[in-house]
């Protein structure tokens, strides 16, 4: 199966830190075009193209821009969320290190659309080697007149400031990210107000994922119709997928939206490594865990959502039968409870209690009553936590309970699991 490279078109072909090199392959032409357009028209193109956010939630990109566009303010911001924190996910890393100018260009176009003159890139702290690449690339883009004052001779000013995170997963949540840039504890804000009206430093802000922004230049250049010809009707375009876990060929691949999970797993990645397929988790730790009967699944935003999971950032964790689903969930919960910001009751307390309950199950001491408590608590977390981190904590738990009921039952009432093992309990 052939990949389709729209976002990865320049991978390995240009000098990533050199804006001129990017320009030699058609870079910043889309920006040039956007600079002569009205903001509303740029937003209209993105609306027609049907671009949806690639960070996890799949929110229509044009709407985010529209909200910020509609809000009157002396200052507006574009923020690039490069805090790629979802475990196992590496797709933004590829774009950031191989084609940073495509992101800058996307940001500049979005900035022109809403009338922003300043952008921020919030870079994951665990990507320290990307920092110098971005610094050099930003400087090169300024030298080439693509950033800074009077970009591309248009009279429009736009520049980008680079910020590094400090290792908190929750800072990938947009409002926690704002708090972090502002120098505060990385805690999500309640909403509304939404970032489009009151975001970074209280100003209208459009925040987008790296991959989303990288989609914008090709859309502007080739048009909405072209874009819609790729992918599926509800999710046009291509998607970067990070395939990881027990699979023969791991990596970041680009396919049109709607590609079948089964094809990625077997045709592209050479099947399961070291055993038989036990489960797949899509969308990172906050995604659903599905069983082998469920993998004939078109990977676009709505299809995956309809199956109870989420496409999220497009991460595919392949799990072989040397693992135990309860153990995997335990691992997920350990991650979420330690990454909870601690602000809201639901996530702070609930995350740890869920983890404790699952540990109880995995150690063979659990009962049916514990399963009931887990379901009740997870359902409360899914609907009443303050931010997405709390809501997501419940997803692997509830999906695995649904898709692997017999596995849970096997652990109850003193029964031993050879994989979880009593000694690996808490």
């Amino acid at each position, binding site marked *: 199966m052939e990949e389709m490279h729209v976002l990865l078109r320049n991978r390995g072909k240009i000098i990533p830190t050199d804006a001129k090199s990017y320009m030699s392959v058609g870079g910043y032409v889309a920006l040039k075009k956007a600079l002569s357009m009205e903001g509303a028209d740029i937003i209209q193109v993105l609306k027609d193209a049907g671009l949806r956010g690639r960070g996890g939630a799949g929110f229509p990109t044009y709407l985010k821009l529209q909200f910020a566009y509609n809000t009157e303010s002396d200052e507006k911001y574009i923020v690039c969320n490069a805090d790629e924190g979802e475990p196992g996910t590496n797709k933004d890393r590829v774009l950031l290190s191989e084609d940073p100018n495509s992101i800058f260009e996307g940001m500049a176009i979005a900035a022109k659309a809403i009338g922003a003159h300043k952008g921020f890139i919030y870079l994951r702290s665990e990507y320290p080697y990307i920092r110098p690449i971005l610094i050099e690339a930003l400087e090169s883009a300024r030298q080439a007149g693509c950033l800074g004052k009077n970009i591309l001779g248009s009279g429009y000013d736009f520049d980008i400031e680079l910020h590094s995170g400090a290792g908190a997963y929750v800072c990938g949540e947009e409002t926690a990210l704002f708090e972090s840039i502002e120098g505060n504890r990385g805690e999500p804000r309640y909403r509304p107000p939404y970032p489009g009206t009151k975001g970074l430093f209280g100003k209208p802000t459009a925040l987008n994922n790296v991959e989303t922004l990288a989609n914008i230049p090709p859309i502007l250049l080739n048009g909405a119709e072209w874009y819609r010809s790729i992918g599926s009707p509800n999710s046009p375009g291509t998607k970067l997928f990070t395939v990881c876990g027990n699979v023969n060929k791991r990596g970041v691949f680009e396919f049109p939206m709607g590609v079948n999970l089964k094809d990625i797993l077997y045709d592209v990645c050479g099947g399961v490594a070291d055993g038989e397929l036990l489960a797949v988790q899509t969308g990172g730790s906050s995604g659903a865990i599905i069983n082998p009967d469920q993998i004939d699944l078109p990977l676009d935003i709505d299809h995956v959502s309809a199956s109870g999971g989420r496409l999220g950032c497009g991460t595919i964790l392949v799990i072989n039968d040397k693992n135990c689903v309860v153990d995997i969930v335990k691992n997920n919960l350990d991650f979420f409870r330690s990454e909870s910001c601690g602000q809201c009751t639901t996530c702070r307390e609930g995350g740890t209690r869920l983890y404790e309950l699952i540990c109880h199950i995995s150690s063979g001491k659990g009962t049916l009553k514990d399963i009931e408590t887990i379901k009740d608590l997870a359902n409360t977390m899914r*609907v009443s936590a303050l931010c997405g981190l709390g809501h997501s904590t419940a997803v692997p738990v509830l999906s695995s309970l649904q898709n692997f009921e017999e596995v849970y039952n096997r652990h109850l009432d003193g029964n031993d699991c050879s994989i979880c093992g009593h000694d690996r309990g808490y």
Partner: protein
Amino acid sequence: MVNITIDGQKLQVPEGVTILEAARTANINIPTLCYHEDQKIKSVCRICAVEVEGQRLLQAACSYPVAEGMVIRTSTPTVLNARKNNLELLLAHHPQDCLVCGKNGRCELQKLTQDLNMNKPLRYEVETRGFPIDDSSPCITRDPNKCILCTRCVEACNEVQTVGTFSKQNRGYETVVVTPYDKKTVDTPCVGCGQCVQVCPVGALTIHDDTDRIYKELVGGKILVAQVAPSVRVTIAEALGEDPGTISPGRLVTAMKKLGFHQVFDSDFSADLTIMEEGYELLDRIKNGGTLPMITSCCPGWVKFCETFSPKELDHLSSAKSPQQMFGAVIKTYYAEKAGVDPKDICSISIMPCTAKKFECLRPEFHDSGYQDVDISLTVVELANMIKAAGINFKELEETPFDTPFGLGSGAGEIFGATGGVMEAALRTVYEVITGKELPRLDFTEVRGVEGLKEAVIDIDGLEVKVAVVHSLSNARDMLRKVRAGKADYHFIEVMACPGGCVGGGGTPVRSWKKVKARLDAAYELDKQLPIRKSHENPAIKEIYAEFLGEPLSEKAHHLLHTSYISRKDLLS
């Protein structure tokens, strides 16, 4: 206005109000926990969850604004279950010793547990944080194990007071509110104002309890001589369940006599004494080129704040002691002599609206009588607890006047508890002393009210006296900045640490601005009712100068009624 439906009831409410506010207009009480009417919306406890039609998630009523056509359900099984589940999580991480907790019966978590009908054993093992109780401060007691992380104290201390004693540390389940570098409270810049205690919904922050010390003294054979601060008489009844603003000086004295206090004096007297000393000091500074503006020094929270954050400005502080400490020095000297008792046999007790007064008592400077001038300072809340414990039916008590010779106070002393009150009292006296003429009007309404900064210019015989009044330490900090920059173009500034002044103090019953305003009204009402409304006309004041002190600012007055300050900058490092 927008049209919304709450629980089937159609309503018109102003656009932009929250679901919580809208529901209240329809007599629907959505339960809350982190929400506080005087504070910013926090939206973290998730107790006020409600359903909004068309939304997958429950929304927090405290923060979610209504919109046209919104359909809200506040008590569906899903909503009630989510509330109970979140509350259960909090309870499982909270000590279970409610029956012997200082907040028992006044705890918002406890009330919520009743309201939500939590009647089943917790499904989780109870875990507490295992922190030691921090009883190091003479003013407040901290039990971090009881904290539910609403962060009201953080806002009160960091934003309202800009002291910065509390902040959050760690993440997730390990999150905790701590002092800088985990120091004991006594070693932090905490000024002891108790505004954190005022907003803490649970037993994590409480007033340092000194009631046991009183009981000990009651059987120890000492003469218990008490002074009662002006604002106590407008808050004690409230602390015992009556309406905010209820005035009850007579019943208060009766109750204290029943408790076994031998002498109950009125701190209005020493407030008047403060006005005499402070007023003459101001005149002296104006006439003889002293440091101006002069700033009041009766508030111990403010004094410690200035000592800690701005020691270079200490020469602006009036050297006059606070009314509490003036009275303390007078009781163990003048009064002891007059009553023919040995000062060492006196236990001097103050009843205050204030937690910081407990710290003030311990300042080594305040031993001018040869003993610790005030031995124990109790808050209104502690006194109310003693009254309750003694089975006294406060509501039905007859009235008893304060004891002589310090039972008479002026209206000027009476309003010391209100922001602007000290200023107004001082102006009444300073005007008449300078001009020798009677004031045409007694009420300086320019310095009344709850605005953060109040200013006035008073023409005193051609001298334009410029004054300013600030309350809450964030406003005091702004004022200090102006003083430092030489831009505080005033002669006299009144500063009170607590928002609203002493009637909003850390030792008063749980405050809200609504209640504080009722207390303020009561203080001004009392002032109006009193026959004497100027400090210098108080006969007890005339008497003590004639018999004992000589004149304001005399050597004796200096020895007993004035003090000095130290830098506490080291508390910041």
